[in-house]
C-alpha cells in the first residue's frame, strides 16, 4: 500500500536522485545524443519537487497528474513528452484514490508503458527507456503475483531495469536522436533507460527504508 504521503516522498526522492545524476545522464547523452538529457530531466524534476507541496493534500491521481503536466511543460525534447505521458496515463489509472494498492500500481505501470509506446512508437529492443521499463514491469508483476510484498517487488523491478540498461549497450538505436548515428550507437548505454532505472531504484529504496 502506498499512501499519498509516501507517494510524495517517493517523488521527492526521485527528484533528488535525478539531480545527483544530472551529469551522468548528460554525459551519456553527449555520447549518442545531444548532451541534454540530464539538464532536461533535472529541470523537470526540480520543478516537480517544488510543485508537490501545493498538491500534497490532494488524491494520488491529482498528485501524479501534476507531475505529468510539470514534466510536459518544463522538460522539452523527447523525454519530456514521454515521461509526461507516462505519468499522465498512470494518474488516469488511479483517479481520485487516496492510497494505492498493488493492483493500482500494476495498472499504473502498465498504463505508463502503454503511454510511452503510444507516444514514441518504439518497441523493446530499440535502445530506449522501454528497454529498462518493460522488463521492470514484468519483474514487478511476477514478483507481486508470486506473493512478494511491494518493497521486494520493486527491488526485483529495479534489478530488471538495471539489466535492461546493460542490454542497451549491446544494441543499435533505431528510435530517437541516437538513431542518426546508426551502428555508431552500439557500445553506449542509453540515457533514457538509465534515467528510468534510476527512478525505479529510488522507488525501491524509499519503500525499503520505509519498512525499517
Amino acid at each position: 500500500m502506498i499512501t499519498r504521503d509516501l507517494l510524495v516522498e517517493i517523488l521527492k526522492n526521485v527528484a533528488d536522485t535525478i539531480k545527483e545524476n544530472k551529469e551522468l545522464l548528460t554525459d551519456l547523452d553527449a555520447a549518442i545524443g545531444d548532451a541534454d538529457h540530464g539538464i532536461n530531466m533535472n529541470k523537470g524534476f526540480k520543478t516537480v519537487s517544488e510543485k508537490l507541496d501545493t498538491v500534497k493534500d490532494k488524491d494520488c491521481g491529482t498528485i501524479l497528474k501534476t507531475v505529468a503536466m510539470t514534466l510536459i511543460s518544463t522538460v522539452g525534447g523527447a523525454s519530456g513528452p514521454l515521461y509526461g505521458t507516462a505519468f499522465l496515463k498512470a494518474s488516469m489509472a488511479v483517479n481520485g484514490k487516496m492510497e494505492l494498492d498493488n493492483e493500482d500500481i500494476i495498472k499504473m505501470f502498465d498504463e505508463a508503458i502503454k503511454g510511452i509506446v503510444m507516444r514514441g512508437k518504439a518497441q523493446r529492443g530499440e535502445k530506449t527507456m522501454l528497454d529498462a521499463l518493460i522488463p521492470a514491469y514484468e519483474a514487478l508483476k511476477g514478483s507481486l503475483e508470486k506473493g512478494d510484498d511491494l518493497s521486494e517487488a520493486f527491488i526485483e523491478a529495479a534489478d530488471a531495469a538495471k539489466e535492461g540498461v546493460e542490454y542497451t549497450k549491446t544494441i543499435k538505436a533505431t528510435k530517437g536522436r541516437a538513431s542518426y548515428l546508426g551502428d555508431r550507437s552500439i557500445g553506449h548505454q542509453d540515457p533514457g533507460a538509465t534515467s528510468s532505472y534510476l527512478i525505479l531504484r529510488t522507488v525501491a529504496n524509499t519503500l525499503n527504508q520505509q519498512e525499517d
Partner: protein
Amino acid sequence: MKKIINNPENVVNEMLEGIVKAHPQYVKRLEGLNVLVRANSPVKGKVALVSGGGSGHEPSHGGFVGEGMLDGAVAGEVFTSPTPDQIFEAIKAVDGGEGVLLVIKNYTGDVMNFQMAGELAEAEGIKVADVIINDDVAVENSTYTTGRRGIAGTVLVHKIAGAAAEKGMDLEEVKRIAEKVIANVRTMGMSLTPCTVPAVGKPGFQLGEDEMEVGLGIHGEPGTHREKVKTAAEITKDLLDKIFEDIELVEKDEVAVLVNGLGGTPLMELYIANNEVDKILKEKGIKTYKTIVGNYMTSLEMAGFSVSILKLDEELKELLDYKADTPAFKQL
C-alpha cells in the same frame, strides 16, 4: 566560447525580445511564453500555420512569421524541442476559426511535443492537422527507424503552405500542399566548422584545419562522415549527387533552389556555391524557376551550407510566387 550574449541561460528570452523590438509591425510575443505570433493574430477566416522547434536556427522560425508564411513560431531552448503547453498557447492564439496546421520537423522530440499540443487543442475544439518534414537525404530513409530529419527544406514548406493558407485554402488543402512540398523537396548539407551551444560552452565536435563534415543536421551534431576539404565545385556536386540519387529529375523539370547558409558562412561563398549549383542543373537540362540564397535555417555560428531542391509543378510555382511579407523573407 566567444559570443555576443549576456547569460547563456537567457539567450532565447533576450533574442525573442530583440526580435519583437526590431519587428513590432510583424510580430508580437505571447506574454510569458517563447512564442511569436503575427502582430494581428488571430487572422480571421484563414488557416493558421504554426512552426517552431529548438532555437539556434534563426531566422527560423520567428523570422518567418508574417503575411504569406507563418502565423506562429514556438521557440524551445537552443536545439531542444519546445514543450506542448507553449505550442498549445501558440495554436490558441493564432486560430482564426479555420484550423491550424502544425509544421513539424522530423525529430522525435518535435513530433511528440507538437502532436501533444495538437491533441490538447483538438480537445478544446480547434481543428488541427500536422505535417512532418523529412528532407535530409544524408540519413537513410527507413520505416524501421525514426526516418529522415527535417532541415532547410522547411523554409520552402513555410513559404508555399503559407501562401496556400493566405489564399484562403482550407485546412485539408493547405495540408495537401504542404505534403506535396515535403514529397518533392530534398536537402543535403555540409560544414567547415562546428558550433557551440551557449549553455554547453564548447563545440559539438572538432574538425581539423583541412577537414569538413558532410551530411549533417542542424543541431550541431556531427554528420554522416568526414572528408578533406574540397573545392566549391566538388562539394556542390557531391551534395547534389546525393539529392539526385533520391529524387528523379529529368530534362525540362522545373525546380526551386535554396542555397542555405548555416549561420557563419559569408554570402560570398553561398553565391559561389550557387554558381556551381546552377552549372550542374543546366548541364542536366533542369530549369531553375527560382533561387533563394542566404541564411534561412542555421545552426548558430556554424560555417557551411546546404542545398535544397524542390521539384515544382504549376500549383507550387504559383504559390511560390505569392506575396510574402515577414521579417526574414519578403517577396513583392
